[in-house]
Structure formats: C-alpha cells, structure tokens
C-alpha cells in the first residue's frame, strides 16, 4: 500500500499524451504508424512494474497522491485494486493491436487518427486508475471527445448521426453524475473515493445518488433501454474505434457500478437490485433476440454486446461472490472476445468492402486462418466451454441460480440465444452460399500478429482462469465484505463453490 518509488500509473497516463505531442512533429504516414506502434509497445513495457501487484491485498496499490486544487480538496490521487488492474492491462494491451488493425483500414488523416488513439488510451487508463472523484470524472468526460472524433471523422456513411447520438447520450447521462459527485462531497466532505467508501450516507442521498450514477453507468454499459446509441456507434466507427468502444468504454459503465454504486450507495443498491436485475435480464434477452435478426456483422456483434454486458450487470447486482467474480470475468472476456470479433469484421471489410453477412459468405474454403480465428472468437462469444467467456458466464449463472431459480432460468435463454446468433453467423461466413471468398487473400502476418495475442488469452483464461481470479478475488472479497457490513444484506448461502474446485481451476487451486 505504500507509494511506489516509480509512479507507474502516472507514467501510463502521461506517456501516451507525450507520445501524441511527439507525433505532431513527425512527418510521413509510415513513420506515424510505426511511432505509435512503438509507443504502444513502450506503454506495455511501462505497465510491467504492475506485475509487482500484491495478490494478497484487496486494498488500493501503487497509490500516488498529490495536492491538486487545495481550495476545494481536489487531489491527484491514483491507485488500483484487482478489478482496475485487469481493466488497465486490457486497455494498454489493446493500443498496439488497434494500431495494427488500422494499418490499411485508415487511409486519411493518419496522424490525427493516431493522436486520437493515444489520447483515448490516456483517458481510459485514467478512468480506471483515478481515486479522486473529480479526477475520475475528468478522465470519464475527456474520453468522449477522442471517441467522438474517431466515429465522426473516420466513420462510415452515417457517421454524423451516430457520432452525435453517441456524444449526446453519454454526455447527457453523465451530467447528473457530476451532481451526484458534488452531493457526495457536500455530505462526506471529500472527493477522495477511498475516504468516501468508509462513510455511510443518508438513505435519501443514497436513493437519488444511485439513480444519478446508475443513469450514467447504464448508458455507458449500455443497459436496455439506454442501448440505442451503441449499434449506431459501432456500425459507423472504424475498426479501432469499435474495438476500443466495445473492449474498454463499455466496461467503464460496469466498473462504475462496482467502484461507486456498491460502496457508496449500498442500501440503494439493495433497493434497486430487483429493477437492475430485471433490466439486465431484459438486456440479455433483447440483445440476443435482436442480434438474431441482423444482416450487418457489426450490428450483430453490437447487439450481442448488449446481451453480454447484461450478464455483467446481472452478476454485479446479485451481490454474491460468484456473481461479482463472474461479472468482472465477463468484463475482461467481453473485451478480449468482442475486440477480436470487431478486428475480424474489420479484416473482412478490408477484403469485401462490406459488412453485410451476405457479402462475406463462404470464406471457409479460401481463408482457413481467418475462419479459425473467427470460429474461436465466436465460440468464445457464445460461452463455449474451454473458452474465456464460459468461465464468466458460468459464474454469473451459478450466482443467478443461487439468488433464485427464476433469475437463473431467465438468463439461460440468453446464453442459448448467443449460441443461436453466433453459430448462424459462423455458419454463413464459413459455408454460406453463394461464396464470395474466392478472390480474397487469407490473413497476412500483420493480421496474425494482432489476432494471436487475443486468441491466446481466450484459451488461457478459458482453460486456466485461476490467475485472473486470484487477481480480482481479494478486491471482490473486500468489496462484498464492506457491502454486506453496511447493508446487513447477506447473499444467499453458497452451496456450490465452483471457483475453488479443480473443475474450474485446473491443478493450481489444490496446491
């Protein structure tokens, strides 16, 4: 818990900023791409000290604290626990992959594109590392502008509509978040998140603050019925934009629920849990049903995201160890899997210049490597055992069945729908007639490079989730302990202790 000598988190936040300034001086498209790629790799190197994360502690680590605006008690306060560590690693790892997958896709205003990518990374790391409420809000809002530009400048034909909808929706949601932050400051006397977590707030404040925060986070997730900006944004965004949107931005919503709603407004969380669970189930079912009818690959994956994020919010609002573990697992897995799927759609688009399923059918015979990756990520997306998403979904479902048979029973069709729409997509892409793939080339080395790491993680987390669970477990334990101490809400008894059995963990758990 002591402040480390090297400010890792600050370095992770400010290095991309510095790199984007350096880019201004660089001339030549190739040089810009290479430099950004190098910056992305350097950013990963900078993240290496995070390996010193103490797995036994559930508290905040790598804490950095400095005075910022003393008149209002604002502090520059950074720190991470297991949950934010995973999210930061995901964000950092995606930067070079995004550069690689945009190598040919982005052909105009290249320098600006890479500057925007770097700014995004900076803001995203900041969101997950901030421990001061205002600092969090600063990064949370700062991220809107680069994302808006990603969609509005490099997007598809309908980009104007999609980008404005994205901006309006998310900004409208978060204005009330600011009011909630101020209300917490007025009641708790500080903007520091760890300090606020130790305080108990009046039920009335909790009620309204929960609503304000939940609106912001539910729009970001997005939960049904606030999801309508997502398909529009995904379809129009360039590949890298979609990847960042799906893998990182959506996670901020659920991260907000975990980091702010549960510790700060525990009573209101319990009050609203039935509503949130119902909305989550609605997201799961609605997302699945709509995905089933899509002709556009990106739209299909976008709606599947709505369903997957429904599993995350469902897991969170079960308030049980299994549920929250599953939720965090699912956050990470959705980032990996959906990121991979969007990259693959981008790769298909580069070949066929269309995202329609009908224009990309029958690739199996001609593009075996492409279909291998597509198959792997699709199976992961539908939660096939042995892939990463299975772990997350299974944990959430276990938690749901512990809560009540009804909740679990309603979530099951969602998992089945996922299988239906993903297998339909997979089948058409691999064997659909008439086949379009005869003239397409298979994956080039660059594409191998950006898909392989994600594929490795799909299998690694799928087959050996222990390490990931170990990282998040102490933080989740602490979160739930504080939560139940505050609310006298005890999660239902846990007869099934899956995560600690060899079935889920392999051998390591028994050692």
């Amino acid at each position, binding site marked *: 818990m002591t402040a480390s000598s090297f400010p890792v988190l600050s370095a992770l936040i400010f290095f991309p900023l510095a790199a984007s300034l350096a880019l201004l001086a660089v001339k030549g498209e190739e040089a810009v791409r290479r430099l950004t790629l190098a910056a992305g790799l350097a950013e990963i190197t900078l993240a290496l000290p995070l390996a010193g994360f103490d797995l036994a502690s559930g508290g905040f680590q790598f804490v950095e604290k400095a005075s*910022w*605006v*003393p*008149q*209002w008690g604002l502090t520059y306060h950074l720190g991470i626990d297991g949950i934010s560590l995973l999210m930061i690693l995901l964000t950092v790892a995606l930067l070079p992959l995004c550069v690689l997958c945009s190598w040919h896709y982005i052909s105009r*205003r290249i320098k*600006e594109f890479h500057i925007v990518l770097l700014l995004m990374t900076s803001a995203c790391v900041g969101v997950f590392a901030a421990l001061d409420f*205002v600092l969090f*809000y*600063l*990064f949370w*809002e*700062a991220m*809107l*502008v680069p994302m*808006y*530009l990603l969609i*509005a*400048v490099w997007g598809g034909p309908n*980009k*104007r509509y999609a*980008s*404005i909808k994205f*901006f*309006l929706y998310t*900004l*409208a949601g978060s*204005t*009330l978040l*600011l*009011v909630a932050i*101020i*209300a917490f*400051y*007025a009641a708790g006397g500080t903007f520091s998140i760890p300090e606020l977590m130790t305080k108990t707030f009046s039920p009335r404040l909790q009620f309204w603050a929960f609503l304000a925060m939940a609106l912001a986070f539910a729009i970001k997730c997005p939960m049904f019925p606030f999801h309508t900006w997502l398909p529009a944004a995904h379809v129009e965004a360039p590949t890298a934009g979609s990847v960042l949107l799906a893998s990182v931005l959506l996670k901020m919503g659920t991260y907000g629920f975990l980091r702010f709603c549960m510790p700060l407004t525990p009573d209101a969380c319990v009050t609203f849990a039935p509503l949130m669970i119902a909305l989550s189930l609605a997201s799961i079912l609605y997302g699945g049903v709509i995905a089933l009818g899509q002709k556009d690959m990106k739209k299909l994956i976008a709606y599947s995201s709505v369903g997957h994020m429904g599993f995350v919010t469902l897991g969170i609002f079960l308030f049980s160890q299994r549920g929250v573990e599953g939720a965090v697992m699912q956050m990470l897995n959705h980032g990996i899997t959906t990121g991979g799927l969007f990259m693959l759609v981008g790769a298909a688009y580069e070949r066929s210049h269309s995202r329609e399923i009908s224009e990309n059918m029958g690739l199996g015979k001609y593009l075996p490597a492409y279909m291998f990756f597509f198959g792997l990520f699709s199976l992961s997306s539908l939660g096939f055992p042995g892939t990463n998403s299975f772990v997350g979904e299974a944990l959430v479902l276990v938690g749901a069945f512990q809560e009540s048979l009804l909740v679990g029973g309603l979530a099951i069709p969602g998992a089945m729908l996922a299988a239906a729409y993903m297998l339909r997509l997979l089948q058409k892409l691999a064997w659909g007639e008439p086949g379009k793939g005869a003239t397409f080339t298979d994956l080039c080395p660059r594409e191998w490079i950006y898909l392989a790491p994600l594929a490795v993680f799909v299998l690694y987390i799928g087959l050996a989730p222990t390490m990931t669970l170990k990282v998040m477990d102490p933080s989740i334990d602490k979160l739930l302990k504080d939560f139940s101490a505050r609310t006298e809400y005890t999660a239902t008894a846990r007869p099934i202790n899956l995560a600690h059995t060899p079935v889920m963990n392999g051998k390591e758990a028994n050692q």
Partner: protein
Amino acid sequence: MTLALLPEILLLGLIVLIFCLVVAKPGKDVAGTWLPVGCLAVLAAAGASLGQSALLFGGTYQVDPLSQFMKMAVALGLFIAVTNSRGQATLKDEVRADYSMLLCLSAWGLMLLASAVELMTIYISLEISSYALYALIPLRAGDKRAAEAGIKYVLFGAAATAVSLYGFAYITASQHTTFLAELTTKQWDFATNPGALVGLIMFMAGFMYKLALFPFHFWCPDVYQGTSNETAAYAATLPKLGAVVILVRLASLLVPGQPGMTILAVLGAVSMTFGNLSALVQDDVKRMLGYSSIAHAGYVTIGLVAGTAEGLASASFYALVYILMNLTCFWVVCHLSKDGRNMRYADLDGLHQRSPVFAFVLAVAAFSLVGLPPTAGFMGKLFLLTAAWGRGYDWLVIIAALNTAISIYFYLSLVRHAYTHDPSSASETKNSGLALGTLFAAVLLALGILPGPVYELAAQAGKSLLP
C-alpha cells in the same frame, strides 16, 4: 495609493494620449501599432497592484482583492479585444483611432466599476463604460444592421438605466445611505423593509441588462449579429465582468432563502435554459454565441445565490474563465472572417485542413464553453455547482447540470463543422493570430488542469466580501 490606482491611471493615460494624437492628426490610425503593447502594460500594472487595498475618495472607491482580480480580468480582456480589432475589415480607416479610444474608455469605466462601492459611483462608472459602447456598436461600415443594433442597444440600455436609477431612489429613501459598507449592516428582508428589497432588485436589473440575464436579454443576439465581429467580441465579454463584480458585491447583501435570492436563482435557471434552447436553432455563429452568453449569465448566478465566500469566488472565477473562452472563440471567428462578414457554421467547414491550429483553438474554446474537462470551463462550472450545493438551491444545480447536455449540441456543431466536414470551397484562411490563439487555448487548458493559483485570487476576493 499610486500603486493601488496604477492600472486605472495608466489606462486613462493611454486614452488621453490617443485623444491628443487624434486631435493632432485627425483621420489617421494613430494608435494601431502601439496600443496592444500599452494594453499589455496595463495588464502588467493590474498584476502588480494585485495585493493592494485602499479606501479612497471619501469611501466611494475601494481597492480590494475583488476589484483587483476583476481589473486584471478587464485588462486581459482589453488586451485581447484591442489586438483582435486590429485590421478590422468593416471599419473605416478614419475612425480606427476613435474606435481604439472608445474601446479603452469603455474598459476604463469597467475598471472603475470594479472598485466602486457607493451606488452613485457605481452608476457613473457603469455609464462611462456604456456610453463608449453605445458609440462603438454601430461602427460597422455601411451596414444597416449595425445601425439597428446600435439603436437597440441604446434604447434598451437607457430603459435599463432608468429602472436602475428608480431602484436607486428606493434604496436611498429606505436605507438613508448609498455606501455599500453601510448597506450591508441594514435589514434587507421583505417583511421589515420591502422598499429596500424592491429597490435593490430594480437596481440589480440594470446590471442584469449588462449581463443579458433573462428577462433583460432581448438586445443581446440582435446586437451581436448586427455589430462587427470584433465589437461583438468585446460587447459579449467585458461588460459582463463589470456586471458580475457589482452583482457579486450586491449579492453579498442578501442571505440564501430570501425572496431576493430566490428571484435571482429563478432568473438564473430560466436564463440558462432559455439561452441554451434558443442557441440550439441558430445558424449564425455570432448569434449562437449571443444566446450562449445569456446561458452563461445564468451559470454565474449559481455562485451568487450560494451566499458564501466560495460562491462569490466561483462566480468571479467563472466570469474570468467566461471572457477568456468566449474571446478565444471570437478570436477564431474574427480571424476566419476575411471581409468581416458574419460567420455561419458552414463557413467553418474543413477548417482542420485550412488551418489546423485554428481548428484546435476553436475546439478547445467550444469544449470549454460546454464545460468539458480538461478545460477551464469545466473547473469553473465544477466550482460553481459545488459551492451552491446544499445551500437551498439544489434544483438550480441540477438544472445547470442538465443544461450542459442541451448546450453540447451547438458547441459541438462548431467542432463538427471544423473537423468532420470537408471544405466547401477552396477558400484560403488568413494565418495571422495563430500564435496568440494557441496561447489562449493553452491558457484555457492550463486553467482546466491546474486552476489552483488563479482560483486563489478569486478565493481571496470572495473572502474579503464574506469573511
């Protein structure tokens, strides 16, 4: 004493110098080259006199942290406005020197206003500033709309002044003094002293007119649209500072919960909502900025109704941030408009190609006006909202927060046209003013990331009024 009055004396010296030169060489642009430097000197003088305090001229003129903070803001704004007005396309050559002189005279009146602590002095300072501006507004060569704007500004201004004076009479009649220091010790609630409260609100109305607070806003969009870009830049920003400083002084007389405060809060809420909703449908950039200034006047009232030192400090800080971000926005508009005609959104198309620097400066200013981090506008708004929360006007805070969501659309339109639209024609762009524009954008970002030192000045000003 000399140091305390240095900025005013220096500015008055500049004005007299221009006057003499104009008399000696009528019709020549005698001030164009050196005036920005002179204004920088005034800014330096204002900075040097920051720590001063004095009570002069029979207790009517007070040099305190608030006045010095505002004088610095006025000097900064004047420097930008004067630099901006150089090479104005729609100004006849023979009136250029007079234009500069009137600009300085108006700012001088505002500086006096910042220090005035007696109602009559306040009134006279306001009029010095306003009369100069009445003459400035129609100075747009051969444009009938400018004449219309001038007439509107004079007529509405005269009416507002009359109301103000009427209120002044009520205050004097019921409180038997015109000194603010003594007025603070009097009763101001409706039950014991209705005449005084009515008088105070009427007196404040004159300043609400300057601030373009609803329902005193009618003149604002028309005047901005009619007058030249450069004059609009000045009229939209600096007079508001004067209004804010007086409203800050007067608001320290009131206690939250009183009818006077509640009226102010309601006017603020209506002002921001009305301003933002009207700005949504504008096509002319200056007109949009006009309506947006009505909204921003509403934001400032949030700090006034808080009734705390923090609230007054936030209002002062926001006023400074407001003139800076608005002048930055106007800076880009003025420099892009080659022949001085009004800009439409479509004229900004493809700015990122024509002039990437201006596109960036405009984006920073626009996002600051929205209140998005990491710009000064966000910090200003954060301070305002935080100061007012829990003071009985929580609804106002919520309305202000929701207004951010309304306002994003039209400010984003600036950025959208600049960044995402392709240029309609191969029109070239003047590339003057890039360096200063970048500097203003940098200051907006710096104030958004580290507002502490500048806010400290405003905080002292607030504390000096409500210890």
